[in-house]
């Protein structure tokens, strides 16, 4: 300011008395520009007093808030305030431009009687200022109400003081319903502690804002995943007033992510199954081909036993045929079955299987019990289900204990998404510690039984997999085995 005043002293030929007089009695002011930017402005006391009369909250320090553009005389100045002064200058005031030391000073002097003109211009200025405020307020309101993200003003005790449309659609409550709730009440319990901890830090002033991923309960009870950002509004004295929260709903992308994860899991599983299958194929085909080459080598060297070798060659070829048949069966299993899925009533299905193995059970004196409650239904492929039951039930018959009255009991229990089907016997049992990992392997058998081929459980397992089901086994040697099959309800 001192250097400005020096400049002004220059203007009034360095006579402080004249300067003081002017300041007290003249209506004048100056605008100081440097490189076309306003550096400072000065209004004489009389001008200030007048301006204070017409502008309620007039404050000459506010002049610095506006940016002025200096233009040549008669050109338009866009900034409202400088425009008014410029207008004053050209109409009634004396306008003088002084340049010194890269600075430009515009000195404005005008008589008091022209103050009415100032009034009208300042009035215009005020109007436009109010207009601007109104516009920005309505723009904000519009923005708040219709924002793509959820916005809310939350009271210090957690009440939803004011929420926008997005929040209410996201959480399923009307604005009125929400105003009676606190965010604590509809926060997923596991996320509440973290939220409250951060909120406390925010209130204490330890952090300026926070952001976290959290879950809310939708009115319908389902979970809404959101990213929450919270900041705080204080009063003039710095006391907390309320929180401003922004919530982005990421439920849909979460669901998509879950779906992708699930798909990835399925494809990994399928890949693994294919890999295993490739091993099975090579191994099983190799064992036959090596038998062939061995027998053929013998055929060429041996003289006396040709007849017997030929017999074995035929046997080997039959074995190969059987293996290929099994492998084909498995290949067909894994090809698309979705469209063949249907709702199947379990009880009659089990009855059918029991009927078909009736004579086998009678021969081994095994009692077959269909304990499935009537009306239990699952979603599957009838042919698979039939084969699964057939495999597990004949298994139970085959490995029954000759030492006691044997049974195979089939029961079912409806769980949330799956039905648990139990096939329990009191037969020989399997040592799961020894054989558990190979139980459902191809050509694995665990008992010395004439009919054991190690293919039944393998196919059954593959069929259950194809139906998106699961199978578990519990067994105690010489007590019995229970297979638990989980198949989808729909």
């Amino acid at each position: 300011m001192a250097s400005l005043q020096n400049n002004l002293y220059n203007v009034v030929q360095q006579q402080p008395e004249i300067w003081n007089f002017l300041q007290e009695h003249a209506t004048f002011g100056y605008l100081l520009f440097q490189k076309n930017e306003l550096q400072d402005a000065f209004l004489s006391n009389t001008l200030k007093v007048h301006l204070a009369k017409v502008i309620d909250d007039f404050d000459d320090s506010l002049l610095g808030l506006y940016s002025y553009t200096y233009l040549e005389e008669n050109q338009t100045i866009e900034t409202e305030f400088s425009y008014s002064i410029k207008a004053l200058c050209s109409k009634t005031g004396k306008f003088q431009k002084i340049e010194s030391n890269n600075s430009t000073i515009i000195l404005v002097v005008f008589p008091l009687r022209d103050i009415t003109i100032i009034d009208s211009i300042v009035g215009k200025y005020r109007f436009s200022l109010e207009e601007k405020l109104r516009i920005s307020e309505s723009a904000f309101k519009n923005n708040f109400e219709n924002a793509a993200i959820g916005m809310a003003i939350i009271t210090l005790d957690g009440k939803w003081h004011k929420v926008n449309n997005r929040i209410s659609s996201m959480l399923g409550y009307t604005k009125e319903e929400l105003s009676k709730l606190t965010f604590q009440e509809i926060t997923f319990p596991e996320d509440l502690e973290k939220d409250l901890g951060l909120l406390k830090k925010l209130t204490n002033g330890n952090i300026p804002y926070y952001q976290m991923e959290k879950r809310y309960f939708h009115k319908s009870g389902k979970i809404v995943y959101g990213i929450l950002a919270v900041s705080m509004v204080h009063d003039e004295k710095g006391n907390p007033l309320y929180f401003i929260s922004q919530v982005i709903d990421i439920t849909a992308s979460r669901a998509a992510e879950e779906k992708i994860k699930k798909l990835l899991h399925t494809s990994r599983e399928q890949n693994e199954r294919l890999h295993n299958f490739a091993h099975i194929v090579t191994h099983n085909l190799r064992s036959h081909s090596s038998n062939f080459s061995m027998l053929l080598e013998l055929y060429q060297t041996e003289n006396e036993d040709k007849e017997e070798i030929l017999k074995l060659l035929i046997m080997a070829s039959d074995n190969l045929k059987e293996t290929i048949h099994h492998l084909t069966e498995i290949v067909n299993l894994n090809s698309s079955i979705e469209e063949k899925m249907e709702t199947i009533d379990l009880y009659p299905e089990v009855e059918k299987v029991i009927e078909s193995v009736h004579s086998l059970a009678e021969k081994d004196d095994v009692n077959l019990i269909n304990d499935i409650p009537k009306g239990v239904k699952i979603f599957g492929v009838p042919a698979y289900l039939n084969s699964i039951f057939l495999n597990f039930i004949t298994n139970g018959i085959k490995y029954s204990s000759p030492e006691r009255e044997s049974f195979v009991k089939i029961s079912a229990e409806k769980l949330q998404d799956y039905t648990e089907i139990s096939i329990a016997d009191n037969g020989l049992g399997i040592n799961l510690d020894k054989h558990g990992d190979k139980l459902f392997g191809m050509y694995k058998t665990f008992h010395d039984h004439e009919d054991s081929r190690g293919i039944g459980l393998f196919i059954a397992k593959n069929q259950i997999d194809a139906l998106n089901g699961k199978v578990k086994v519990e067994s105690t040697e010489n007590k019995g085995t229970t297979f638990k099959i989980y198949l989808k309800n729909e």
Partner: protein
Amino acid sequence: MNKIDLACIIDDDPIFVFGLKKIMEVSNFCESILIFKNGEDALSNLSAIINKDEKIPDVILLDLNMPIMDGWQFLDEFVKIEPSQRITIYIVSSSIDPQDINKVQKYKNIRNYIIKPVTLERLTEILKEYSN
């Protein structure tokens, strides 16, 4: 040259056992042969032989993929009863799974891994290997 006195085949595939027996005869591999159809069969019989202090086999040709008790399970049990006199064990399998082949290194008593089919030539090699 050391001749093999008693050889033992542990394999569930009757065709393979027949063929191998014949090739052994042709190549004059050993004096006599013991045959077991799976790991459990072999384990119970061999432990009886060891307990009775009878003649134990010089060489065991062991299949991997067998019912009831497979080759690996047999090996895990057999090390517990193996007598001080070392028995030379060969794995004879049609598995070309690298997992199986690498697993051999975990067992010190395995001499080698032979992939089926076993030819006359291969058997003669084994015999030479054993003798030296």
